[in-house]
């Protein structure tokens, strides 16, 4: 595992459905290049998708909004490796980690179609952190995987 001559890879994307697709491509290509296991890369890709979709659905982000900044970093943590994806947007202050979730549904009629995105982020990520810095929302999402012996 080595980053190619830099500490992180960065990308800027418009918060639109096409931008989500483009950011997925950027992330998956970089995960392959950085030898991030496919299962881990899949989790990161899903969570990136959910956070960007949340900006569009609930924060009013769109084609005329400032671009969202993405950054992917890898870290060596002994017998594990850590991939951290940072998502930075200039929208209204919103801490997605402050949203609480009810219990999982027990029947189809009880199942609420909404509110699943951030639930998936919480379930798939090992580390989550939010801060408001310089007028921007900064969300960090990290996931570990065991390194080869």
């Amino acid at each position, binding site marked *: 595992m080595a980053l190619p001559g830099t500490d992180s890879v960065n990308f800027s994307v418009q918060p639109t*459905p*096409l931008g*989500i*697709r483009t950011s*997925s*491509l950027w992330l998956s290509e970089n995960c392959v290049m950085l030898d991030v296991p496919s*299962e881990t890369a*899949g*989790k990161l*890709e*899903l969570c990136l*998708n*959910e956070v960007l*979709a949340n900006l*569009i659905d609930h924060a009013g982000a769109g084609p005329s909004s400032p671009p969202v900044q993405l950054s992917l970093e890898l870290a060596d943590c002994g017998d594990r490796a850590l991939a951290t994806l940072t998502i930075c947007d200039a929208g209204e202050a919103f801490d997605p980690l402050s949203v609480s979730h009810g219990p*999982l*549904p*027990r*029947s*189809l*009629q*009880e*199942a609420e*179609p*909404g509110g*699943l*995105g951030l*639930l*998936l982020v919480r*379930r*798939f990520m090992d580390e989550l952190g939010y801060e408001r810095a310089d007028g921007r929302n900064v969300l960090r999402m990290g996931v570990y995987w065991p390194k080869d012996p």
Partner: protein
Amino acid sequence: MQTASIHSDDVLEADGSIKLRRVSLSGRLDMLGMEEIALKLTSLTAIQPVGVILDLRDVSFLASIGIRSIISSARALDKKGGRMVLLLGANDLVKATLESAGIDEVIPLFVDDDEAERAALA
């Protein structure tokens, strides 16, 4: 990057009525993908009491917007007296996504095609 597609096949009774409908989705079920197939998914599963197998074996990516559409379709079918089951095969990430959202508790998930068919017809 691959996008989404949807198609369906019906198994008919001797009198020509639908016994079982298989709706197969493939590709990326993200915001763009669901814009392409959501209406067709709703219409294909809005049928009279019948079993529906929603085949997700060729889905490469399932976001919450896709799960919402699946829940809505399954609920509409259930209200009419029908039954939806999900066929996953070896699609581990899609399975993990559905289980993390608790969908396995409300819509039956199957790895095996024959088991899915038996459950949809039960």
